[in-house]
């Protein structure tokens, strides 16, 4: 039984509370607070953590640590201020890691 968390600035994520996900607002996308909460969540049975792209940008180091672990799955979602393309580029990164260069989505 795993739980699902959503992290980001309050405006981007409060809606997810209504559909039953646990939300963890991070004030001003602070890297320090974000890293602390992320580590806490990862150690406390959260299997899926959605993070807004804006917050993920400041937590890049923390997030890449969890990339090769089985749990948790960290998934980037666009925030209220729009889409930075970080999520798509993380998919491209997987392709690059596996194939050697991005042969699928480079066009």
């Amino acid at each position, binding site marked *: *039984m*795993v*739980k*699902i968390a959503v992290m980001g600035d309050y*405006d*981007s994520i*409060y*809606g*997810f*509370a*209504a*559909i*039953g*996900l646990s939300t963890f607002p991070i004030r001003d996308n602070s890297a320090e607070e974000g890293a602390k909460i992320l580590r806490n969540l990862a150690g406390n049975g959260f*299997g*899926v953590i*959605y993070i807004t792209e804006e917050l993920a940008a400041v937590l890049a180091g923390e997030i890449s640590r969890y*990339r*090769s672990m*089985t*749990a948790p*799955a960290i*998934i980037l*979602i*666009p*925030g*209220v201020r*729009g*889409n930075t393309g970080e*999520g*798509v580029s*993380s*998919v491209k990164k*997987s*392709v690059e*890691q*596996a*194939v050697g260069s991005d042969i*699928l*989505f480079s066009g």
Partner: protein
Amino acid sequence: MSGAHVNPTRMELTRLKKKLVTAMKGHRLLKDKRDELMRQFLDLVREDMDLRVKVEKGIRSANAEFVLAKAGMSEQTLRTAMLVPKQEVTLEESTRNVMSVSLPVFKYRTRTADQNDIFSYGFAYTSSDLDGAVQSLSDILPDMLRLAEVEKSCQLMASEIEKTRRRVNALEHVIIPETREGIRYITMKLDENERSTQVRLMKVKDMMLQEAHHYQE
């Protein structure tokens, strides 16, 4: 290239020959593993990209609705409305084994039986935009969960493929040629030893013959 010193003995030769057979078998197996992983990975990553585009579009439009909703009501009302969620989603996690990589499989369950039972507030004090926003987020939820499953699988497979590729390359370009080189070195050294023994024996025979019979060829 072969930097390591090898003892030119028969025992070492047998050992190296066995090592070569194992290395070649391992190389073939790992190569097959890499190819199969790659095939599955490419299918999975295409699905991942499609889902991601869909989910991002869904969240973007839901966010636009949330902004509208927020504009139409006070901050306090909104926070109160969202304070106590009615719905709760939990996941059953199991794993799927693909080529000895365990990938997560999620099955989600909502706390109340009706999936549309999502409005955690009375309709009197909130704007109707909020209802639409919450509804559209709820619609995108199954896709979001599937995205989590697929994207995590892609990440795990990518790192496994990278590892397997390194192993295949190490076997193909380092271990196997080095072992071959070692075997060649030992065979030549042993042949050389044999020849020099033969020559020595012939020489000794000549000397003995000369000593016994003052025999000269």
